[in-house]
């Protein structure tokens, strides 16, 4: 019996990172291959609005409160409501509209793939060759 319990425990520990790992994706033509946490935060809070080649940054968000979204914002060090507050402040200061929120990760993938300068985040299992992976967010155990 103990063996089974250990096996279930081991499988559970392996399965969580496999399904919950979050990747930061971008349009294939963006002029960077990697992104730092601070740069990612600057894009999402609207402090930086352009890629190094001058292309406008188009930020996407997820509508549903899924684990992927929670992990992503926790990584940025902001709660979801804090991010909403920052976006609303930017909007009321004429700095631009909040990010377009996608209903599903699949939709996020399609939008990022088809929008020049786009950046978003999805679960690793959804990633394909249509986008560039800039970062895989490490899971804290």
């Amino acid at each position, binding site marked *: 019996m103990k063996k089974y319990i250990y096996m279930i425990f081991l499988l559970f520990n392996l399965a969580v990172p496999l399904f919950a790992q979050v990747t930061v994706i971008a349009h294939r033509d963006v002029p960077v291959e990697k992104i730092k946490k601070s740069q990612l935060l600057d894009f999402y809070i609207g402090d930086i609005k352009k890629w190094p080649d001058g292309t406008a940054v188009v930020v996407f968000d997820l509508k549903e409160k899924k684990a992927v979204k929670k992990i992503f914002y926790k990584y940025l060090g902001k*709660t979801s*409501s804090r991010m909403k507050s920052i976006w609303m402040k930017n909007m009321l200061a004429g700095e631009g509209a909040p990010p377009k929120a996608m209903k599903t990760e699949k939709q996020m993938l399609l939008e990022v793939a088809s929008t020049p300068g786009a950046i978003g985040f999805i679960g690793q299992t959804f990633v394909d060759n249509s986008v560039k992976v800039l970062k895989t967010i490490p899971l804290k155990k």
Partner: protein
Amino acid sequence: MKKILPIICLFCTARLLAQSSGDGPLKVFGYFQNIVQQESLNRKIGVLNTFALQQLNLFLQKDLAKNWTSLINIEILNNYSSARQWGALNLQEAWVRYRHSAALSIKFGLHTPVFNHLNEIKNKTPLLPYIIRPIAYETSFEEFITVDEFAPDRANIQISGYVPWRGVKVDYAVFGGNGPNINSDPGKGQTGIDTTGTMMAGGRFGLRCKGLKAGLSFTYDRYSQLAAIEDIKIPGRDDYGEIPRVRFGIDAQYHFDRAGIESEYIHVNYHDKNDEINFDRDFFYTTVNYEYREWFSAYLTYWLIQQQALPVKSKMTVYSLGVSCPVGERITLKLQSGKVLSNTWLNKVNIGRARGNYYDAAISVFF
């Protein structure tokens, strides 16, 4: 040729800056906050119960060209009705901004300048947990408190931005605008403009690092209307001339996970060489908040305001607590309760003491 060259350069630069590729649609959005309030601050009147449309703001925003944005903000206060002479209607902002980069933005036109943390967002009810804001920022009290004495409400040109430095963002802003000597009497000429030679200059220098945001702010202008305030007139001294006024502000806030603390201090100093008058003012507030869930946050706040018009001095302290509950993306329900203590002295003798409570409930809507 020497005279024409700068004009040609200016024209070419303007053409270069105003590339039409950034032209965008006209965006209309805004917010309003409706409240119900019970107040018992004046014993003679007793308890007051009232409903009010505390504030409504309507924004029009349009990207005019690449890097150029314009915004208009119209603000309606206190159940506004021109027919009944209730409340107020303000053109709060009408500006155009050129954003060169994160390090450099230039704003031209009427706007609320960067001064301390709360000044820029004081009127933006969806961003605030409060129903009644820290009192020096409560614009719905404008009819009876000189709110813009503490923080500058209006400026006309501003250069701002931030520079990253070793993981810290160094914010800066410098702005200019009219002095406080705005003409309100049509008999004396055009109203709404500064009819003296005075100007206001100010700025803020701040730092942002992880959850910390802090800064120092200041303004300088000259007040020339003190002699017009009848109740402080001293016999034989009708004209005090222009008195330099300096506002000094310090602000700090820190967010850690779901908790946060923010605090501000403002000192308004009149450099009057006359001992008979003293108009210095002080304001302080501190708020501690905690977001229990995305749909529920609570805060405790303390405000202190001191005003002098010697020989009269007044002091008001407010202790307040409140909760804020977002319902979906655009609606927030708010509750707030506060205890107010107020004292007034004439030549150091207490001539008025008041204490009371207020209870507010509000619905804040962003559209």
